[in-house]
């Protein structure tokens, strides 16, 4: 071929190819920013300070946005509530924002059919409906969830303006605790419990590390009190001790030094008997430890011993949770208060002057009253915002039927939940990440909520809708107006006292709020009538009371809370910290009881109470009393979205009556019988075996030894002891880094916050229940939970976060035929997705089993994919993946440092991995093992450090710090005395 001819040919074919490409792709609009937004740099995240609204705790958050989209939440380190930490549900707030089943605009429901309306028409219809409701007092009802701060005030003001009655309902409103505190301390609020300052914490059913009041805050505090951070961290007068009194070994109890398994409904009797042993009078007078032992099943010696410790140490007793949600709930909470008084905790570890606003007095009772008025036809218009009573009230209340008696029903819910689907008009609110607002989690802490992105759908802030309705109705006679053009104006003027100037406002927005010292100091009183009308005896549950019946404990589930998080697929898939199950509602049964019933994990039983029956699969759990079974709340939705449908709703088993004193619901109040149905479903447990078969994966050391342990003596004696220095050798000679982790098992509570944070950071897909049934869940980090059956009959739990160990001699690397798994210069064990052909040999050869295979190409339904982190590659089917130590953060940190100084090394603590960042108890420390002064190096050199499966000589970069057991003050003494509780 001639040269010219060749060139001609190349030219023609080249042009042809390009033309073809052009036609295939079609016209595209690429419009650059003519005037780029000031705060957006492509590729650089923008952060907004705001407040998490996934539960009433109100943790401060920093919302990470990229190119105008929210992609992740992290705790706001300045916020005094959570100090930079966040729980699993907070991490997954993005899935509420991008919920594919959210209402996409205002809707009208007629004859069960949804019809789109525009906002003007919707507001017009709302005004019309309110006019039609008449002027009778109570004919219009505004029903909201718990609100604090400005929005709470706004709702009250607006309700007054339109002549509505406001009702506040929250499923977990701590009614009994509030009532007890009103009676004993003169203030109906949750006091500031100084868990961090206490030396001895005893909880009577409060799941304060998981779901109770403010779990992140308490998690931090607990770790400060309890976690072993080296000999110097132990107080001179002895280490912190935590005892849990409850019938079931909950996640919180699983972190206790001693679990005292009192019969359900008798937890407070133990408290009273302790108070009695401390010489308290009043209600405690008759309750000697011996008498308490009879009803509670707790040994009298144990009670006396606990009382001794309570008196000797700076102590704190926590009421609430499952211990104060039965018919004697107020008495139970009063009993614990009395114990606190008897032990001198009030005014010390129990600070009543700064209260947490996480409760609603008599919330449940007001719903019963509302239902009665609705059934009586007195309510003509019902407006529901941020609460879902059709789901969370027991069916016996009759709320759902009563709704039919209300001629005009409006929902402001952003999703189509059970209550909304009974309404005529749906005017969806923004989600908190799109809204303005504020939140007052406790006295003196005012957190701001600011929109982090433009609304995803055609929604409007409910206060703005209300202002608009007010303007439509302003012509009506006698309707007072609210002095504000918009909700933002209203909020802004409400903040004029604390942040009046533009500068102060901007500063408050930047910081995420304003924190002041609490100002209210009510006097602590103990009115003589504190125990008026209270029965302090053991509470009996509805049911046959025979051998075939079990007391039912119903508790909020960590990932679901009251059911509001049920349409988040990642939370649905999160392993329950107690059973490691997910996506369904199970019933926990003691293994011996299960054997007696002839059932095993996954066998479906019909659970029948005097008030209803549901079916649920059995999960056997050694951490529950033999006379007790337990079910988690939050699943079994009939509406709300595609992910919320699994499981059943245990409230169907519950009585409708009210706890007479506090006005709360009866979550613990029935006995149930179990009838096997013969059906079996996969138990959906993440964990294979509940025990570690003496494999020393999660190791522990008695406190007495921990105090005198010598560094360098870790390991279990099989292999060559591993040293940090040796681990540090496993990176390139030229590299200043060898990344590693130190994970404290004594601090880890098993709360799964790290799991959710990792999923958010690393685009980890959810796989759905069918695939969890085949153990194909993808989470790169998991909390292994091992039950230790001790010789004394006690059941203890160890939690161990497990992720890629980035071994120096990684077994996964040599077996990969294509070098997809290789060791990089910084000691990271790297997985090259593009190179992986999917032989899965690496996973077979990984002793830690921390590699996860993409059996399918997993997808996120729109707009859930908007939350994907653009810094992390998505993986297609056929590819192996695993923990990268957040390599994108490592690289970002190196780049940032290099921008300043080419030679500089990333300093210790310059950045954090996602799991480390969110861990409420700071159990995870990440850093450079080559830097002898880094925190991770120091910890890894410590006496408690060990490597998992050390004898395999894989030289992991993860060092674990042993859990410290047998704290001298409790366990040794109890067990030595032959005391304690056997289940």
């Amino acid at each position, binding site marked *: 071929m001639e040269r010219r001819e060749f060139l001609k040919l190349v030219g023609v074919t080249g042009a042809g190819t390009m033309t073809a490409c052009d036609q295939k792709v079609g016209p595209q609009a690429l419009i650059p920013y003519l005037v780029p937004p000031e705060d957006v740099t492509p590729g650089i995240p923008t952060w907004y300070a705001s407040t998490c609204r996934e539960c009433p705790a109100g943790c401060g958050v920093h919302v990470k946005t990229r190119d105008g989209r929210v992609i992740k939440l992290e705790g706001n380190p300045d916020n005094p509530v959570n100090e930079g930490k966040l729980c699993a549900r907070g991490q997954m707030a993005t899935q509420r924002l991008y919920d594919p089943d959210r209402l996409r605009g205002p809707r009208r429901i007629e004859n069960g059919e949804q019809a789109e309306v525009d906002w003007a028409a919707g507001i017009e219809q709302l005004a019309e409906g309110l006019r039609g409701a008449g002027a009778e007092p109570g004919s219009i009802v505004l029903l909201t969830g718990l609100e604090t701060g400005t929005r709470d005030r706004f709702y009250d003001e607006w309700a007054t303006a339109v002549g509505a009655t406001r009702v506040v309902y929250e499923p977990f409103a701590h009614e009994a605790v509030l009532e007890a505190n009103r009676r004993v301390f003169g203030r109906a609020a949750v006091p500031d419990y100084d868990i961090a300052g206490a030396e001895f914490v005893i909880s009577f059913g409060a799941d304060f590390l998981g779901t109770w009041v403010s779990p992140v805050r308490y998690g931090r505090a607990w770790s400060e009190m309890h976690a072993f951070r080296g000999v110097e961290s132990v107080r001179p007068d002895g280490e912190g001790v935590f005892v849990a009194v409850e019938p079931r070994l909950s996640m919180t109890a699983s972190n206790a030094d001693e679990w005292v398994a009192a019969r359900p409904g008798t937890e407070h009797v133990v408290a009273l008997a302790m108070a009695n042993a401390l010489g308290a009078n009043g209600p405690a007078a008759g309750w000697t430890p011996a008498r308490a032992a009879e009803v509670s099943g707790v040994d009298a010696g144990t009670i006396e011993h606990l009382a001794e410790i309570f008196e000797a140490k700076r102590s704190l007793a926590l009421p609430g949770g499952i211990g104060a949600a039965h018919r004697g709930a107020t008495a139970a909470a009063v009993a614990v208060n009395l114990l606190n008084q008897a032990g001198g905790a009030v005014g010390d570890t129990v600070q009543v002057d700064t209260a947490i606003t996480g409760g609603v007095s008599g919330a449940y009772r007001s719903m019963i009253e509302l239902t009665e008025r609705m059934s009586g036809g007195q309510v003509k218009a019902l407006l529901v915002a941020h609460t879902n009573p059709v789901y969370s009230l027991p069916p016996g209340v009759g709320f759902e039927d009563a709704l039919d008696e209300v001629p005009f029903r409006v929902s402001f819910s952003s999703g189509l939940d059970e209550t909304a689907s009974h309404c005529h008009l749906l005017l969806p609110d923004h989600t908190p990440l799109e809204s303005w607002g504020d939140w007052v989690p406790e006295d003196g802490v005012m957190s701001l909520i600011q929109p982090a992105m433009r609304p995803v759908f055609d929604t409007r802030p409910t206060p703005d809708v209300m202002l608009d309705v007010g303007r439509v109705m302003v012509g009506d006679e006698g309707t007072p107006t609210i002095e504000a053009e918009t909700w933002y104006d209203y909020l802004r003027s409400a903040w004029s006292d604390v942040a009046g100037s533009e500068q102060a406002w901007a500063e408050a927005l930047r910081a995420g709020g304003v924190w002041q010292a609490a100002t209210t100091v009510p006097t602590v009183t103990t009115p003589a009538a504190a125990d008026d009308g209270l029965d302090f005896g053991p509470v009996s549950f509805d049911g046959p009371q025979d051998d075939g019946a079990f007391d039912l404990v119903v508790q909020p589930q960590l990932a679901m809370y009251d059911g509001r998080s049920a349409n988040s697929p990642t939370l649905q898939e999160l392993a329950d910290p107690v059973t490691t199950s997910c996506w369904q509602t199970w019933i926990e049964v003691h293994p011996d009881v299960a054997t007696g019933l002839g059932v095993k994990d996954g066998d479906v039983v019909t659970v029948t109470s005097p008030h209803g029956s549901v079916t649920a699969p059995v999960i056997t759990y050694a951490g529950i009393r033999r006379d007790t079974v337990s079910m988690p709340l939050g699943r079994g939705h009939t509406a709300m979205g595609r992910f919320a449908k699994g499981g059943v709703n245990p409230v169907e088993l519950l009585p409708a009556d009210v706890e007479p004193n506090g006005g709360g619901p009866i979550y613990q109040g029935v006995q149930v019988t179990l009838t096997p149905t013969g059906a079996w479903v996969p138990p959906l447990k993440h964990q294979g075996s509940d025990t570690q078969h003496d494999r020393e994966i999660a190791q522990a050391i008695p406190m007495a030894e921990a105090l005198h342990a010598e560094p360098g003596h870790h390991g279990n004696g099989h292999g060559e002891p591993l040293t940090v220095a040796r681990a540090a050798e496993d990176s390139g000679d030229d590299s200043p880094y060898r990344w590693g982790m130190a994970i404290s098992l004594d601090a880890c509570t098993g709360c799964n916050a790290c799991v959710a944070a990792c999923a958010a950071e690393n685009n980890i897909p959810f796989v759905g229940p069918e695939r969890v049934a085949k153990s*194909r869940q993808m989470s790169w980090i998991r909390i292994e939970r091992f039950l230790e059956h001790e010789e004394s009959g006690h059941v203890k739990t160890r939690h161990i976060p497990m992720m890629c160990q980035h071994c120096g001699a990684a077994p996964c690397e*040599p077996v990969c035929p294509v*070098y997809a798994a290789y060791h990089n210069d910084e000691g990271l064990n790297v997985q090259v997705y593009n190179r992986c052909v999917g032989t899965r040999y690496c996973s077979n050869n990984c002793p830690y089993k921390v590699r996860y295979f993409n059996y399918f190409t997993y997808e996120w339904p729109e707009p859930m994919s908007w939350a994907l982190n653009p810094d992390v590659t998505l993986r297609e*089917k056929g590819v192996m993946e695993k923990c990268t130590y957040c390599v994108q953060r490592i690289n970002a940190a190196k780049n940032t440092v290099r921008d300043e100084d080419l030679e500089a090394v990333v300093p210790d603590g310059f950045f954090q991995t996602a799991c480390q960042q969110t861990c409420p108890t700071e159990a995870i420390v990440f850093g450079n093992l080559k830097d002898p002064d880094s925190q991770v190096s120091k910890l890894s050199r410590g006496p408690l450090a060990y490597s998992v*499966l050390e004898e395999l000589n894989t030289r992991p970069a993860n060092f674990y710090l042993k859990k410290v057991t047998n704290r001298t003050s409790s366990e040794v003494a109890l067990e030595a005395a032959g005391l304690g509780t056997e289940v």
Partner: protein
Amino acid sequence: MSESTSTVNRRASGLAQATVFRRVNDDVLATLQRPGVGWAALMAVVLTVLGVAIAAWVYQIKTGLGVAGYVPPVMWGVYITDFVFWVGIAHSGTLISAILFLFRAQFRTAVYRVSETMTVFAVMTAGLFPLIHLGRVWYFYYLIPYPNERLLWPNFRSPLLWDFFAISTYFTISSLFLYLGLIPDIAAARDRAEPRSFRHRLYSLLSLGWQGTDSQWRHYNRAYLFMAGLATPLVLSVHSVVSWDFAMAIVPGWHSTIFAPYFVAGAIFSGVAMVITLVVPLRKAFHLEDYIEEYHLNNLAKLLLLTSLIVFYAYLVEFFIAWYSGSEFEKAIFWDRLTGKYAWACWIMYICNCFIPMSLWSKRIRTSWFWMFVVSIFVNIGMWFERFSIIIQSLAREFMPYQWDYYSASWVEWSITAGSFAWFFMWFLLFVKFLPSMAIAELKELLPPKLRHQQEELERAS
């Protein structure tokens, strides 16, 4: 020497009725006649099963490997079981044709062609599974060391790569060996074929101009000997390499030095069983009773018994070492093998591989066509479950109790497994109709010289 003479005499008596070379040709080449209804029906079944398997594979590629039953931590399942099973089957072919050739064990003559073809087809079947089990089969070429602009090479430390070379080498050698032995026989078939027919042209091409001259025979015999010498070490090395896929891993139940000899013995064991499974019906269908006799069967049965004992010994040693090692993980895995959720698979394997073959101590069973067929089927099943047990049970209960789980295969895996048998038998059915399934030339070598006199006399008389 005397023994060999007596063997020849025994063979001679066996062929007493087949007194002419022509009859050998007639009988063997009769297998190449137009297929009957039975053959066509078998082929139809085989193609249907294969079609389903191909559809299943396409579905798997399109949807993702998740349509197979994998339950982490069991990341290898039935596909790898099938792979090892077929590689194992492939082994006795070379053993019978090459090693027994070198040892001058003449009982091989009647069956070695069948076992050689079995080898080639089994390797062709086995070779599919590493592809089928890949997560991203469309990138399978990453495993091939080809020069590329990214300067990326495969990882030569990975046993999977050794496997790739071992299997491809074995396939090359065993197909060459098979072809070499076929040349004189193809020539015989050529001479019988209708001139200018398709078969004639095919055989002419394949016989490479074979004329049966002395020099051709001399070269042929030399080449055959060399090939046998080359193939012999492969019998040992290839399956050793396959066993290293497991032995090089740190998985308890895999990580063991006994694996190479253990797998080789197992491979021969399963291969001999498969030869019996194939030969018994073949003999019946093509009326080859005069060529394949109880004498052959008896010898194959003895080989089966010997390898069964070796395999049994290996099983016992595994348990001993697990106990002797003191490793908690090893002990746990072997205890679980006997008593755990996969104990059923393990007991199938012991019964089929160790206990049932013990019946072969009885000569009556060794020489019974029916019983040997039954025993060989049991051994085939047992050896499949041996691989199943080793691979799946070991993975299911590895180091981390958190991840212990139970795997069961999905319909996709079963379809493809059935399809692998269909694929194998498809080739085998084609083979028996296109190429002589017994070595004509070598059979004739066994005819004692005196028979040649008889033949001449007979011819003269006629």
